[in-house]
């Protein structure tokens, strides 16, 4: 077991200095995620401008992996189109679960999360931010943007 493969420098940097923690003014949709196995929580709020993510607040209270994952997500998706982000998030989920995925060449710090897939008990930690984002976007697309979506990593993410 190579601990450094999961706790890469990039991960530890995001853990110590998480991005996306500045509260945003207006928000177009939000979602809340929870990992009942360890009590980790994430709140995501997103503001849009012309279909692009203009502002994001991602507040994750949890372990190094879930905190870093949320921070990496916040940094990566800012400025990107919602459609594109949705597809990326779904591919990150597949990557973490060890399933075939199609991620863009420019992955930012996302590729640092790849080491987590070798630690099966910690995959849910890395997944939390991304499945919470996917649920939030899904809710927004179906016209229920005002509702706060609560996601649990225990729902169909085994």
């Amino acid at each position, binding site marked *: 077991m190579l601990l450094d493969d999961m706790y890469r420098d990039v991960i530890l940097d995001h853990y110590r200095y998480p991005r996306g923690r500045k509260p945003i003014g207006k928000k177009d949709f939000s979602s809340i995620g929870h990992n009942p196995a*360890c009590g980790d929580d994430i709140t995501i709020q997103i503001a849009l401008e012309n279909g692009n993510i203009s502002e994001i607040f991602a507040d994750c209270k949890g372990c190094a992996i879930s905190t870093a994952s949320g921070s990496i997500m916040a940094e990566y998706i800012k400025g990107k189109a919602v459609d594109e982000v949705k597809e990326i998030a779904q591919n990150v989920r597949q990557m973490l679960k060890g399933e075939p995925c199609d991620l863009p060449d420019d992955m930012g710090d996302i590729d640092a999360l790849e080491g987590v897939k070798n630690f099966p008990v910690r995959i849910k930690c890395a997944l939390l931010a991304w499945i919470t984002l996917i649920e939030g976007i899904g809710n927004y697309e179906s016209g229920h943007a005002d509702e706060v979506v609560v996601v649990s990593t225990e729902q169909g993410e085994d």
Partner: protein
Amino acid sequence: MHTKPEDIVITEDNSSRLCARTIKADFPVLSQNINGHKLVYLDNAASSQKPQTVIDELSRFYSEDNANIHRGLHTLAERSTNAYESTRKRVAKFISCQNPEEVILNSGTTAAINLIAYSWGEEHINEGDEIVITEMEHHANLIPWVILAKRKKAVLKRIPITSDGRLNLNGIENIITDKTKIVALSHMSNVLGTINPVSEIAEIAHKHGAVVVADGAQAVPHMPVDVSTLGVDFYTFSAHKMLGPTGVGVLWGKKELLDKMQPFMTGGEMIREVHFDKVTWAEIPHRFEPGTPNIAGVVGFAAAIDYLEKLGMDKIRQHEIEITKYALEQLSKIKNLEIQGPTDPQIRGAAVSFTDPDIHPHDISTFLDSKGIAIRAGHHCAQPLLRILGKVATARASFYIYNDETDVDRLVEAIIEMRKYFGV
């Protein structure tokens, strides 16, 4: 040949302590390396490891005696029945119970407490009655009472804890009252390590006519337990936390209570006479042992009790007081580490929960695992307690007969290294 005085001192010291290194050699799983390091197993409050004698007994039973119990008239059925029933007597003696009929063998503490809640509770709890638990209960001794209270529109009350993780008995007279029908409490907390004053609380409960249930899952493996003097009415524990196989446990109850109780689960083995329109129940304990039990597991449990008795429960308790004392001393030297539960090892067991303000328990557990150290991280099936402690999770190191001070040292060294690794 003369003996040097210092040799005598060492001998005397050793005789008052278990030799963890010798004991460890009896547990095959402990001889392996994990992630390149000699395994240090500190997750005993979740489940203990098994000595070779228990593993061999399971294999011997399946190789030589296996058959269903009680109904068969052939030699194997007789052997297997004898082995099963002699374990019941063995368990009774182990907890100083005079009447083996009072020992119900089942799948574990969870099954035992559910049996009490559904059988005794169904008949005796009515609307407005009070059920008393404590704030430090494991979900196994919590959820059955929450559900029972809801089902019967009864009131669930709880004994609070102090800041150092003991039960706060100030104001107990307002909690246990004439309305109290049952008091259910942990003998030893799986999170805080606290050993609760069960006898004292049982005495108060009995003055009000309430029945007392003690969850002994964390106590029986680690200290002498005598149900004839403890003062409770029901007592429960699990074999797998005391060197025995998984899926085996014990409900002890006073005969006068068990005799009047209806079965919780029905089916084979627990009946006297069956018609299409009526059924009469078997006597205790069989009334509460429906279906084919975990026979091999029960037989293996006897070997576990043999092993513990050979060491001596008093000596085991003494050994764990020493380790707990050392662990609390050493862990409290680590900067910022927050340790839960009482600081006096005389009133607590060897399950030590701790948190680091900068590192999540799951990261602690992953890091320690990379150093070959197995601990537990999470809510330890005690979410309401964790909320009171203001934690979403803790890390927990829990020690047993095969652990000694060198294991504490390995843990402490690894935690110090971990803080450097995470740069905190």
